[in-house]
């Protein structure tokens, strides 16, 4: 089967293609929406070239190199916390996953799997309940926000010393990127930021770039990265065993429960934006 062409909504997005720390003089190859790209760094910054050798637009933001195959309206979604001087901004790793980027985002938005997949860290039996939470569209419909998500976590972050009910806020400001805010064990008034930036390499594969902006004055970068990779490594086999590998948008295709409110909104939002890439559109 020939790879599908990206729909206009997907085509005109900025996408991450590498952590900035992994961009060097020596060119490296990657793939975006099925198109092979080359990226490298020279005296003036990061460069990206497309399959036909043309220079592609570049953004260096949120610890990642971003590019586009289309014409995005404006820049990236804001993450104001990223500029706060006392935060640690860390690219924790870029992992390839053999499933659609939308499946990856949906898993990132799901709390129900914590006790089973991240046992002893982000959840624990018998604390399996996903309590009622809110989800809504904001920014004129450009962004999904889920608030008041509470979940019992034995070890919510690298600086946790005991279990606690942790509050989550999820943002989905981009079809393959999500930003998660969770209570900081270091400062009860502030939130740690954990972002999953999805690079759709094909309709059924993506690279997940994990970027953190957190309050942690204790641990070294490699331990913080270790913690994130440990969690993402637990998700990987679950994701890669999902069938179908593209996210079905027909509400009847998979049976959601109340805990899946964010996912229901996400699928609806993708459909309303005319997304066909990486998903199975609902029959007209």
């Amino acid at each position, binding site marked *: 089967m020939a790879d599908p062409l990206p729909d206009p909504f997907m085509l005109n997005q900025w996408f991450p293609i590498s*952590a900035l*720390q*992994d961009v060097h003089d020596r060119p490296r190859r*990657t793939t975006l929406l099925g198109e092979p790209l080359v990226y490298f760094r020279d005296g003036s910054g990061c460069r990206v070239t497309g399959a036909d050798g043309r220079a592609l637009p570049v953004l260096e933001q949120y610890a990642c190199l971003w590019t586009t195959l289309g014409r995005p309206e404006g820049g990236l979604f804001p993450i104001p916390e990223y500029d706060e001087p006392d935060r640690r901004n860390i*690219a*924790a*790793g*870029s*992992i*390839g*996953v*053999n499933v659609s980027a939308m499946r990856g985002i949906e898993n990132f938005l799901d709390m129900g799997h914590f*006790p*089973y997949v991240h*046992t*002893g860290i982000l959840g624990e*039996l018998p604390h399996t309940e996903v309590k009622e939470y809110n989800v809504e569209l904001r920014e004129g419909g450009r962004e999904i926000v889920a608030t008041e998500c509470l979940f019992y976590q034995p070890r919510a972050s690298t600086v946790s010393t005991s279990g606690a009910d942790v509050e989550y806020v999820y943002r989905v400001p981009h079809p393959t990127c999500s930003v998660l805010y969770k209570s900081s064990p270091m400062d009860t008034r502030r939130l740690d930021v954990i972002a999953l930036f999805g690079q759709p390499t094909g309709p059924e594969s993506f*690279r997940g770039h994990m970027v953190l902006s957190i309050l942690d004055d204790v641990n070294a970068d*490699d*331990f913080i*990265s*270790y913690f994130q*990779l*440990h*969690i*993402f*490594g*637990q998700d*990987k*086999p679950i994701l*890669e*065993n999902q069938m179908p590998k593209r996210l079905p948008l027909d509400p009847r295709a998979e049976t959601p429960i109340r805990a899946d409110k964010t996912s229901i909104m996400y699928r609806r939002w993708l459909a309303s934006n005319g997304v066909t890439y990486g998903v199975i559109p609902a029959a007209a």
Partner: protein
Amino acid sequence: MIRLYDFDLSGNCYKARLLLAILGVEYERRNVDFFPGLKHREPEFLAVNPLGQLPVLEDGDLRLAQSQAILVYVARKYDPSGRWYPLDSPEIAGQVQQWLGFAEGLTATASAARLADGMGFDFDAEAARDGAHKLFAVMDEHLWFQERQGQDWLAPGAAPTVADIACFPYVMLSEEGGISRETYPAIRRWTDRVKRIPGFVVMPGIFPAVLGSQ
């Protein structure tokens, strides 16, 4: 105390952690940021292992690289029953050694495909997958005949050996490299038996026999 130079997502490091856990041996984990930091290629770690390979085990004055060698050492040193590395029968000792060699083949194929797909290493993933399927077919057939003779493990005998520990991780992680185990039923039954060995521990990508129990 024993020190293990370790990377969490490495199947070869997990082998050492798995046997140490099963034998109840305490040790210190020294995290080497293999990915994304590539710290195994930097002078600090090259001073520990000039080959730049993980894991490395230090026990007293001994410094040992190569996961299969570490399994042999840990079994001989910390398993008084001698059953994890049985030497009494030349036939069994030879077969255990044969499967330790086979595990090197799994590293060269199933592990390489996983590193290429998951971490962007510049390996030929298709060739690695082909190679892994050849090995899996051999292993599946062997395990099927073992079962017919009432044998649960790779080498003959009533108990698992280091051969099972050595081969388990990259078989169990194969789907991350795009290698399905759907057509290898005897392998699937064997991996389930390994997960039920008392003291079994998991790593990211490998779940316990009973979900949520670890």
